């Protein structure tokens, strides 16, 4: 089990404290079965999304002899109403899911981290303003963003990524700000101030690295939420548009053929559930490793 996924590639660098620490964390992580299952699921999902589309047939190729065909050697997971190979569409769908999950999370981080940093650092005059704005954003349910964006720019993957990214912003800002508030009182920050370091230097050299762990954990929460969000919006017709094979779009089609081809409804759902479960388990494990106090 432990051989799967990332191996201990950290070379024994001369007295590097960081490499040492990383190895210790990895050892602590490896001992737990559930997070390892999560890691395996996440790696499998990444492989499917990155390599899958290269080795499967064209997902929009229509085989009219195989419309609604059950699983067979030619179509291992069956074929849909237009005779398109379900396995190929699952692999392309993984790519869409990965894009939605990673791009929206990146978007939230790129915008949210700087805002959180300056809000926490200049807390006297900037912080109250930023936090009230965060409250306002929090007051909108995610679906309202999505509906609004779909209404204004039309349903698309781009709209999905913007809506999901925007919905994640408050969490990123709050986490970064919270860490800044805690770290800025540390002695080494005081020492840097006494040393004459500028604000920018302190923020990016001393404070930002300390925010990394909680933000990594946040990403493992945000990515599966975004994967489900993309599938949901695409299922409703507000996200990725056919013929692009998103898992949500595939389930929309499946609903029309539930009595003739029930397997069409099984695979995309299983994939969504496994990908989400993988990130959730991995996130739980990382949280325990980074913060042993929270381990139960």
């Amino acid at each position, binding site marked *: 089990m432990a051989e799967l996924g990332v191996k201990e590639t950290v070379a024994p660098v001369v007295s590097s404290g960081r490499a040492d620490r990383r190895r210790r964390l990895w050892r602590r992580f490896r001992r737990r079965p559930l997070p390892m299952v999560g890691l395996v699921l996440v790696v499998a999902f990444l492989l499917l999304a990155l390599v899958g589309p290269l080795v499967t047939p064209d997902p929009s190729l229509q085989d009219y002899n195989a419309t609604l065909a059950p699983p067979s050697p030619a179509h291992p997971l069956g074929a849909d109403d237009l005779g398109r190979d379900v396995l190929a569409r699952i692999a392309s769908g993984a790519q869409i899911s990965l894009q939605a999950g990673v791009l929206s999370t990146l978007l939230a981080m790129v915008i949210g981290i700087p805002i959180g940093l300056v809000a926490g650092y200049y807390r006297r005059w900037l912080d109250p303003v930023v936090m009230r704005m965060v409250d306002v954003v929090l007051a*909108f349910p995610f*679906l309202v963003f999505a509906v609004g964006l779909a209404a204004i720019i039309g349903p698309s993957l781009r709209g999905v990524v913007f809506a999901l990214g925007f919905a994640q912003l408050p969490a990123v800002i709050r986490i970064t700000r919270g860490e800044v508030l805690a770290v800025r009182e540390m002695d080494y920050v005081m020492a840097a101030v006494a040393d004459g370091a500028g604000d920018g230097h302190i923020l990016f050299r001393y404070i930002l690295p300390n925010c990394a762990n909680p933000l990594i954990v946040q990403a493992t929460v945000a990515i599966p939420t975004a994967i489900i969000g993309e599938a*949901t919006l695409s299922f409703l017709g*507000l996200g990725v548009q056919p013929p692009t094979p998103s898992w949500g779009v595939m389930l929309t089609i499946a609903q029309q053929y539930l009595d003739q081809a029930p397997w069409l409804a099984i695979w995309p759902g299983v994939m969504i559930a496994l990908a989400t479960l993988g990130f959730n388990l991995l996130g739980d494990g990382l949280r325990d490793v980074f913060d042993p106090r929270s381990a139960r």
Partner: protein
Amino acid sequence: MIWFVLRRAGSALIVMFVASVLIFLGIRALPGDPAVVMAGEEATPAVVAAIREEYGLDRPLPAQYVTYVGQTLTGNLGRSTQDGLPVSEILLQRLPVTLELAALAMLVAIVIGVLAGIIAAVRRGRLPDYLATGFGLAGLSIPHFWLGLLGILLFAVTLRWLPASGYVPFSEDPGGNLLRMLMPSLVLGAGFAAVLMRQTRSAMLGALSSDYVRTARSKGLPESAVVGVHALRNSLTTVVTVLGLQLGALISGAVVTEQIFVIPGFGKLTVDAVLTRNYPVIQAVVLVTVAGYVLVNLLVDIAYAFLNPRVRLSGGTDG
């Protein structure tokens, strides 16, 4: 307490103001003439002119905003571009359907989630705990709409026990209404049951190892009283908080559930409006959703302060 409520209500009003400005500007940010957007693409020039007149669309933006707020507050939300019915009438017809679905789903979630959480905490580390924890993880990872499809596949297509979709008003046929609402509310409630179960379990574990529970036990109270009265009461604040935090998810869950089971509620109205570019309806559903969301969050905050005096004394729930 009064000050706390007033302050919360004040910030809720600010949020509503910002929301109304965003919705107002959103419609006007669309490419094209806003009067045509509001009238629908097939409207006659006379209708477009009437709309321009009614909303004062040839006047400056601040004046338009005042008109918009005034009309909204008096219940004039415009007319649907699909059938010309007043939007307010459509909302009154659709909202009760969704409220019924949401209430039933919450009932399912509270009964299953809180009970499973208590059992998992009391039987910690044994089979019931593992079953409940596994259910919790599955509930977090399985999207509503897939659960709905699986439910239709099993109970409607294969077993033929329940209807696959459809809706009858409660007033016409109470039995048929509940029968058709059974699967949707189970599907929508299951995900929240999972969240509630996880939170109840960890709150109960905290409570069960606390001093006051040890005191209750040492007084010789029966275990059922210790768990059911002392530990549970202190875990209930968690339940209230989670319900508030999950409200946004409940709204999007209801939209999806209505779409799957073809229930003519508020959620289906929302999706149909976006797909047909029915902007007056989109504008109204977004406003109503935000208003409902802000109102429930306000009530949750007040309930929370009521249950937990520390909140109102320290002046807020921000942490």
